C-alpha cells in the first residue's frame, strides 16, 4: 500500500536560497500529519509542492505512489485550505462551496445537494445564500473547509488555517478539525508554527528548520526525546545546556536538554544526591500561570534556565525575584542532544 504522500530527496531552490533542502518523508493514508517550524523554515513550500503550486528543483514528490512532477494542481486529488481562506468574493457561500463540482461540470442538482451536505458538516446550515464578506473569521474558515472537502480529495492540506482566530475559537476549531479528520478518514497535512497545535492534533510531526527536517516523530517522541538543540528548544521550550556548563555538570561535553517541569528547587545544590545534578542560581523572573508557575533563573555563568512547578494551595512557592536558589534534576531525565 503506497504512502499517500512521499518526498524523495525533494528540494526547491529560489536562486541561491534552498527553501526546501533534501527532504524525505512519507505520509500514510488517513494520517493527521503536521509540518511544524518557524517562519521561513520551508514547511509552507513543502505544502505547495504537494498541492502543485511549486515544482521541486530536484528530487520527486509522489502522491499515492505516482510521481506528480509536472502535474498541475487541478489534476491532483489534493485540496487546500488557504491561510487567508481565499473565498471568492463575487460568489455566495453555497456557490463557493460548490465550485469544485461546478468546474467538473457536475449537474446542478447534485451541486446544490452536496453543497448543503458540506455546509451541514461544518455546522453552517442555512448560510448558503450569504456573501463571504458578511462572515466572521471562524465562519469563513469553515466555508473554506467545506469548499475544500466537496471533491472528496485523498489529501487535505491546511496552511496555518487557525492563525487569524482568537484563542477560544482556535481551541474549539482544533477539536473540530481533529474530529472531522477522524470521521472522514482523509489524510490531513497541517502546516503550523504553533508547537502546541501540532502536538495536540497530529499523529506525527515533521519539525522543519531552514529547509530541512530536524526530526520526524510522534508528538510524544518529539517532546520526550528531542534529537537536536533546535527541536528541544522549539518544541516545548526545554532548557538546553551546552558547552562549559554542560561539561561541568555532567562531565560530558555534549549538549543536553532538561524539561522545565523536571527541575526542582533544592536547598542542597552544592551536595547533590546520587543520580541528581544541581547547581546554584538566582531567580530573575516568575510568572503565575494558574496551575503552574514558571521561574526564570540565572546560573553563575549566565545561563538562563526555566523551572516550572505546580501551584498547589493558596500560599504558593516562595522563591521571589532576586533570591538565591538551588536547582536540581534527575540525571535520567536529561536528553542528550546532537550538536547544531
Amino acid at each position, binding site marked *: 500500500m503506497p504512502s499517500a504522500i512521499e518526498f524523495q530527496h525533494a528540494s526547491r531552490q529560489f536562486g541561491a536560497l534552498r527553501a526546501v533542502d533534501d527532504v524525505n518523508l512519507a505520509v500514510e493514508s488517513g494520517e493527521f500529519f503536521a509540518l511544524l517550524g518557524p517562519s521561513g523554515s520551508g514547511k509552507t513550500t513543502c505544502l505547495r509542492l504537494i498541492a502543485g503550486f511549486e515544482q521541486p528543483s530536484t528530487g520527486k514528490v509522489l502522491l499515492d505512489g505516482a510521481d506528480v512532477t509536472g502535474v498541475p494542481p487541478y489534476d491532483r486529488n489534493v485540496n487546500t485550505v488557504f491561510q487567508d481562506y481565499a473565498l471568492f468574493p463575487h460568489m455566495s457561500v453555497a456557490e463557493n462551496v460548490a465550485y469544485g463540482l461546478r468546474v*467538473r461540470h457536475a449537474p446542478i442538482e447534485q451541486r446544490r445537494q452536496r453543497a448543503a451536505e458540506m455546509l451541514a458538516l461544518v455546522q453552517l446550515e442555512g448560510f448558503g445564500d450569504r456573501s463571504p464578506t458578511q462572515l466572521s473569521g471562524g465562519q469563513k474558515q469553515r466555508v473554506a473547509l467545506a469548499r*475544500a472537502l466537496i471533491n472528496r480529495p485523498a489529501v487535505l492540506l491546511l496552511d496555518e488555517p487557525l492563525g487569524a482566530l482568537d484563542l477560544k475559537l482556535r481551541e474549539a476549531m482544533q477539536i473540530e478539525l481533529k474530529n472531522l479528520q477522524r470521521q472522514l478518514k482523509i489524510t490531513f497535512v497541517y502546516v503550523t508554527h504553533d508547537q502546541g497545535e501540532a502536538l495536540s492534533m497530529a499523529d506525527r510531526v515533521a519539525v522543519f528548520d531552514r529547509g530541512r527536517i530536524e526530526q520526524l516523530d510522534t508528538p510524544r517522541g518529539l517532546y520526550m526525546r528531542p534529537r537536536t538543540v533546535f527541536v528541544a528548544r522549539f518544541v516545548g521550550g526545554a532548557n538546553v545546556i551546552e558547552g562549559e556548563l554542560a561539561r561541568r555538570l555532567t562531565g560530558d561535553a555534549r549538549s543536553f536538554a532538561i524539561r522545565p517541569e523536571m527541575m526542582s528547587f533544592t536547598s542542597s545544590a552544592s551536595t547533590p544526591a546520587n543520580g541528581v545534578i544541581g547547581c546554584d542560581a538566582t531567580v530573575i523572573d516568575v510568572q503565575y500561570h494558574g496551575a503552574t508557575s514558571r521561574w526564570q533563573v540565572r546560573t553563575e555563568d549566565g545561563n538562563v534556565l526555566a523551572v516550572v512547578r505546580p501551584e498547589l494551595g493558596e500560599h504558593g512557592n516562595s522563591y521571589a525575584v532576586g533570591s538565591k536558589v538551588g536547582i536540581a534534576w534527575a540525571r535520567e531525565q536529561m536528553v542528550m542532544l546532537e550538536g547544531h
Partner: protein
Amino acid sequence: MASATATIEPGAGTLGRGLSTFFYRRSTFYLLLLLLPPLLWLGTVYLGSLFALLLQSFYAIDEFTATVVPQLTLETYRQLITHPANVDIILRTLAMAIAVTLACAVIAFPVANYMARYASPRMKAFFYVGVMLPMWTSYLVKVYAWRLILAKQGILNWGLTAVGLDGVLEIALATPVVGGPSLASSYLGMFIVFVYMWLPFMILPLAAALERVPQSLIQASADLGARPRQTFWGVILPLALPGLAAGSVFTFSLTLGDYIIPSVVGAPGYFIGMMVYQQQGTAGNIPLAAAFSVVPIVLIAIYLMLAKRMGAFDAL
C-alpha cells in the same frame, strides 16, 4: 525610582495653537471647510454649466430671426429625433463608440493581464511608462501623425505592399460603410485611431483591477480543479469587471464626444461631436447643439445602468 524631571506641557495659547485645537475639536467643520472650495467648483462651474446646457436644450431657435427664444419647449428635441440625418449621426457615433470599446477591451486585456500578474518589477515599470508615454504627447500631433500613417502614400500602405498584403487592405477598404478610398478617409481608419488614442485609458484601470485579484484566489480555483480557462472566466474576469467597466466608460464617452478625429481622419459622415461644434459655431443654433450634447450624457447613463444590472460593479 527617579521622578520625571520635567513634564511636557502643551504649548501656551498662541493663535495657531488656538485654531488647531478648534479644528481638532470640530473635525466635521474642518472637513467641510476643506471640501468647500472643490465643492464650490463642482457646484457652480461644472454642474452649473451642465445645467445651463440642459436648459438651453429645452429652448428653440426661431427660424426667421435666427435667435434663441427663451421659452421652454420640446421643439429642439423633436427636431433631433425625427430628422433622419440627426438620427443617423447619433447611431453612427454610438456604433463607433461600441466598436472602439470592444476593440480596446480585447486588446487591453492581455496587456493589462501581463502587466498585473506576470511581469517582473522591471518589466512592469517599463510597461507602465510605455502605456502612459503617448498621453504626454499632444493630442493633435498624434491625430495628424495617424492621418499621415494611414494615408494612401503613408507608411502603413507601403509596409503592407512591401510584405505583399496590399490585397488584404484593398478588401478591407472595399467593405461597404466602413471602407473608403483610403484608410485615412474611412471609418476603418477612424476606428484604428480611436482605439489607439483610448487604449491607455482602458489598460490602466484594468491593470489596477487585475492586480487587486489576490493570487490565493487563482490558486484556490486551480486547486479545486478548474483548468486555466475556467479560472479565467470564473474568477479573474468577474473580479476584473469593475476595471473593465471603468475603462469602458472612458473609451465610450470619449468616443461619443470626440470631434477632432472624425474631422481629421474620417469619412464624410458626421459625428455627434462635430455636430455640436458646428451647431454652436457657424450655425448659431445653440439649442440644437445643447440637445446633441445631451445625447452622450443619456447614452452613458443608460450604459452605466446596464453595466450595473449585469453586475459589473458587484466585486467592488
